[in-house]
């Protein structure tokens, strides 16, 4: 089974900010262009300190990629889509189909 990385990333972001809302089934996210934004965008509202919690939650949801997630900088200026692509690559490298 393929792992839906986008869903887990969106849930991990929503765990630190009320500005992001995720519906699991059917999958949808508010704001709809979440993956084109940066973490510190005013429609996402994540701070550098909250990046620590985002990473910790994402590592628990995707334990196969935990080591590589550790390497993501706690810098809220990162683009969410680029972080997601990196996590997808890390999972695939760990042998998990994405």
């Amino acid at each position, binding site marked *: *089974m393929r792992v*839906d990385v*986008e*869903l*887990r990333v*969106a*849930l*991990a972001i929503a*765990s*630190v*900010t*009320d*500005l992001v809302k*995720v519906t*699991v*089934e*059917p*999958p*949808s*996210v508010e704001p*709809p*262009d979440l*993956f*084109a*934004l940066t973490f*510190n*965008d*005013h429609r996402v*509202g994540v*701070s550098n*300190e*909250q990046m*620590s*919690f985002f990473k*910790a*939650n994402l590592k*628990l949801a*995707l334990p196969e990629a935990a080591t*590589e997630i*550790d*390497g*993501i*900088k*706690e*810098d*809220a*200026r*990162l*683009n969410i*889509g*680029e972080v997601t*692509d*990196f996590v*997808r*690559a*890390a999972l*695939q*490298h760990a042998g998990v*189909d*994405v």
Partner: protein
Amino acid sequence: MVLLAAAAAFAQPAPLKITKLVLIPDADNFDVNFNQAVADVAGNVDLANLTLTPASLAVKSIARVGLRPNILRVTLASKIKPGTAVRVVFGTIQGPGELEARGLAAEAVAVTFEDFKKAFLKMQESFKASSEKNIFASGFVTTASTGTQGGMDLALNPNLGIPGLTSFLQIKKSTQAGADPKNFEAGARYRGVLPTAGKMFAEIGRAADEAAIASIVAAHQKGIWQQLMAGTLVDFAGKLEGMGTSFAVANFVGESAVQFRTRTKRFVGRHGYWRGYLLPFGFEGGRGLEENAGGTVPRKVDWLARYKAGLGTTFFYENWYSEFPIRRVELDANGVVRNLFFDERRYDAATKLTDRTGKGVRGYGQVDLKIYLGQSEKGRYGLRLSYNRGSLPPVYSRVKSFQFGFLIETSDDSVERR
């Protein structure tokens, strides 16, 4: 008429185009990223709509990605080998509304995971430190009791590349007596992270499918604590404290602290938010690095022990479509109190000498307000106001100042422009 034509041109959506191909190493699929959402229509995901080279790559399916509406994910019958140059050409792609584009093409070369990771790490290290970003803000005009002079407020947090471990450097310095905290701190910090939603994400990590994830999420989103708090940070740090521009007084200090951090919560409708933290317990202990300094009774070892507590909050508002001249406001308010268990060295502004504090409580508060009035392609500009009061180690120079400055900073977060 000219104005109407200009308004019509302004209202037209940008043409649809491919921004990049993302080839995940060792995967049997790749992503085509568009500059805006692609329509949920059969024509966009029709295999006959895509011409892919090399021809040896057989396409199994094309699908929109549920949470990323600007992506088409192309699944292949086999994995793409590193070094393969992939080119895609779409017959017709429909975007939002009536938007349509023909013959959109893009290409990329598949790389190994090591090269993919290297490119990502290089990208994230390319961001400027916040002190560089706010380089114009860091030189401010300050007004204390008399006169107006300059100052510096610098914070750097270089990444050491070790999970949980970061280094830091902070200088708070002003040339104006009464506005100079004479505070320098540099060291390394290990941070433990305890997310409030950790149990939920551990269950998601074991979930079999999306239906199970939906049940887990529904079961865990009821508690008030979960709704309010993002989690707890536990810090352990070793640092050098100095006076900012000299080490006439210098301490080596070990520190541990616990912080509770809130989630980001909505404030003033959809344009604003707030978040905050509470530091109920922290301990700083160490010693002065200079022997027999200050005081009427010289001592061999100048031991330090302090209890620390603090809190802070951030309010943010942004609306670049507002008719009001103020488009973006950031308010940061932070306070910290320290209870000194031993007397320490202190800077006396009157005598310009160091003597000694008594034991007891020392506080420091800072309120920063940034008001942005406009922005361009180069950055945002506005005003910065700051109020500081109290005293900070290592010399507890008393500060009571109001600072005012013009602010120009690069807009390297995603922004809406008018």
